[in-house]
């Protein structure tokens, strides 16, 4: 049976947000293709009821494979077997470095076509077409596949709906690992370049640019993010990272991270296109800038022209008051 197989990455009993988005996207596409979306989980001692939760995002079935966690090669072995046995036409990944590595290995193993950093997938003439921004996001290229197609999303490309609460049947598959797949061991998990906040997963981002005037300006942004509480974090532009005011891990934009929080509050950010491409999918964009001509006001949902040193403290007070009430 043809279909789409999605790799669902999990860590400490929870699925990765981008994987859930990919499952939901696959379910939508499978509907249009008249086929099914399946998910695969690979790891050590995964509980069936955890795997079954993927049904809530649209997986018709979940394959569970017992293999070492956090490494690409065991997943390549597992996905190659499941796809060959079940005749899946496509594999879909939510993104991330592990997704890139698995996808590339799987493409080599299956002789499949592979497209990375995909931002949109459509159905045309009964086949999937992947869209990938190229040339620094200035143009879109489309990939079609002659045989099996492997599509790896850009982080946050696929929206994550709320779970329907449905659960999917779980099928345990025994996979014989290739000799080289067991050679590597996961020794330690660490964040890339010392990131201590998950800005890609945050619901509210308070981002600062050169308009803050000095590195200390980030203190009030942190205070504002703390006031919002919940899943909030502070982010930064390339200019201020360059100036050494804030760590690279929090950089948004063309050469930084791509984010899509529910609220993106841009303080002292002019909104050059190089920044815009990293945050334009945010649900609500609020901009504070003293220059009324700043490009950010052209795509902000709410723009405030004024001195952020006066506005931000008031905002902190207001948010605190609202939260307190």
């Amino acid at each position, binding site marked *: 049976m043809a279909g789409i197989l999605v790799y669902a990455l999990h860590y400490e009993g929870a699925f990765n947000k981008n994987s859930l988005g990919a499952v939901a996207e696959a379910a939508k596409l499978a509907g249009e293709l008249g086929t099914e979306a399946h998910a695969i989980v690979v790891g050590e001692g995964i509980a069936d009821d955890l795997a079954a939760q993927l049904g809530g995002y649209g997986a018709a079935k979940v394959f569970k494979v017992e293999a070492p966690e956090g490494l690409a090669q065991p997943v390549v072995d597992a996905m190659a077997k499941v796809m060959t046995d079940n005749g899946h036409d496509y594999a879909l990944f939510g993104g991330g470095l592990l997704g890139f590595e698995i996808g590339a290995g799987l493409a080599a193993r299956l002789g499949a076509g592979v497209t990375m950093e995909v931002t949109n997938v459509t159905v045309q003439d009964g086949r999937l077409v992947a869209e990938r921004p190229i*040339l*620094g996001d200035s143009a879109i290229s489309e990939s079609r596949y002659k045989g099996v197609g492997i599509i790896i999303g850009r982080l946050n490309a696929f929206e994550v709906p709320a779970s329907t609460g449905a659960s999917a049947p779980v099928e345990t598959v025994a996979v014989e690992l290739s000799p080289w797949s067991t050679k590597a061991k996961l020794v330690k998990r660490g964040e890339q370049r010392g990131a201590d906040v998950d800005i890609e997963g945050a619901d509210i981002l308070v981002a600062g640019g050169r308009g803050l005037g000095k590195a200390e300006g980030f203190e009030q942004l942190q205070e504002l993010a703390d006031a919002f509480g919940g899943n909030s974090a502070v982010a930064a532009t*390339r200019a201020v*990272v360059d100036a050494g005011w804030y760590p*690279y891990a929090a950089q948004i934009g063309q*050469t930084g991270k791509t984010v899509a929080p529910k609220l993106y509050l841009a303080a002292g950010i002019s909104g*050059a296109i190089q920044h815009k491409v990293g945050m334009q999918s945010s649900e609500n964009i609020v901009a504070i800038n003293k220059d009324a001509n700043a490009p950010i006001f052209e795509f902000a949902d709410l723009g405030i022209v004024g001195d952020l040193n006066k506005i931000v403290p008031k905002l902190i007070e207001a948010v605190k008051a609202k939260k307190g009430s």
Partner: protein
Amino acid sequence: MAGRNGAVAPGAYPPPVDSPNEFIKRQLDPEDERIEVGVAIVGGGTAGLATANRLLQLLADDPETLERLGEVPVAVIEKAKVCGGHNLSGAVVRPGPLQELYPEYTREQWREAGWAFGEVTKEAVYMTPTGKVALRIPTPPPFKNHGNEVISVSALARWQQQLAEEGGAYVLTETSATQLLVEDGVVRGVRTGDKGRGKDGEPLGNFEPGTDVTAQHTVLAEGCWGTLTGAAIREFDLAEGREPQVWELGVKEVWKVPKPLDRLIHTIGPWPLRISAKYGQIGGTWIYPMKNAKGEDLVSIGFVVDLEYADATTSAHDLLQQFKQHPLVRKILEGGERIAWGAKALPGGGYWSMPKLTMPGALLVGDSAGMVDTVALKGVHHCIKSGILAGEAIYAALKRGSTDLSAYEDAVEESSIGKELWQVRNTRQPFQKGFLRGGPGVNLQIATKGKLPGRKEWHRNDAKPMFIGSTAKGYPKPDGKYTFDKLSSVFITGNATRDDAPNHIRVRQNVPREVAETWRWMCPAGVYEIPEDAPEHGNVDVIVNYTNCVQCGAITAKGGRLTPPEGGDGPLYQIT
């Protein structure tokens, strides 16, 4: 030195560069660590690749000589992601040298290959006395382009790369050449740049050191402002007895337009420039029709400004945006869409500024040698022709087993390059006195086709004192549809310079505001910023956003220096 808008020359604030010491390596790495090639060509632009193409044509019929060049007979070292990635020109070319080099291809095939866009059949030259009026004038002889071809040098270089690779060249893209190898007074090759260094030069996880690439002959085809060319000129005194080089800066856009443009257009101002001696602005524009192989109508439009100007707020990018406001341009572009942008400096000194072209073990071709006729706005055909002559001279030397390339020097002088550049050798110098005072002298030179004897001098662009004028007041506010700011323009070049790469731009800090403003406005890519809290008068520091850099090279004309960045950085031009 920095008074209230008191004129200061950028040349008084030279960049922290120690050339040739920095760019010449005199001790070669041990033999087993080097890469040995036959002929090393630095720069995969039109001139370097023409050299490769011609040389490989000759070697194809001579297996014996080819054999002597070893495993890698010809290596082309290109810093862009692909050849052509950093190339930009108008460009309307005289077809002769291209037909001579590629006799088996027709002009129709050039167009199918995607780098040529049609023969010029109609043309017009306009004066623009104001932002509203355009007066057609009889086409001055240097502007006659009938029968020439509109091309993209970026696309041409990509095609030449393909031919070179088919002919057996090794094209090392994403590789900078950072040092000239010189041993016992002979050029022995080049050293490629390190990759994977951090901001402070520290090796990162993906660090790869450069390599000494040794060659029997080295061709410097770096284009305008080659770092190694500059070092070679000093090392071997190649500019002795010549005039200093002077420079111009061009900013170009390519538009997809709703209806075809039926003629090739040049405008010679004065609007939007200020031609008074005080402002010292000289420049002009082009608007060229292009029809691509898909039948779509495109237009190449560009603004070129002489870097001799005195108003620090002169910005070629913004002048182009301002020029687009003219009704003459609006009726061509409106309803269309901008598909490309780019910027490049070009050498403008011509004949008297050309350095000696050869040194032991190496030679110069194309823009590296200053082979541009800035009266006719033409250099591509000279690039190709010099490549042909260089290829032939190197082949002859290889055949003789000699390292003497001086025959190339005479061949260039006697060719169309020498003849055409001689004719206009004194034409533009009078403009250094200002457009109005110099104009009659320029016209006299054009009318007499260089028959007047003598030699007119150039003075250095960075010796021109700068003041903060009001040119910037005329620039339109970008609307993001018809007029654009610098950063969104850089964005569509596909520029992808690593954020944590070392800074490849050298400028002094703590400079008079006039100098800082000159850099800020001149740079088409928005590299230089003056902090908001900097003092209004006196000296300021400059923020250098070097990751925006599109490597146009203009900064070198006004007191800074562009040095080779890490290979693969910078723009990825496709159709400029």
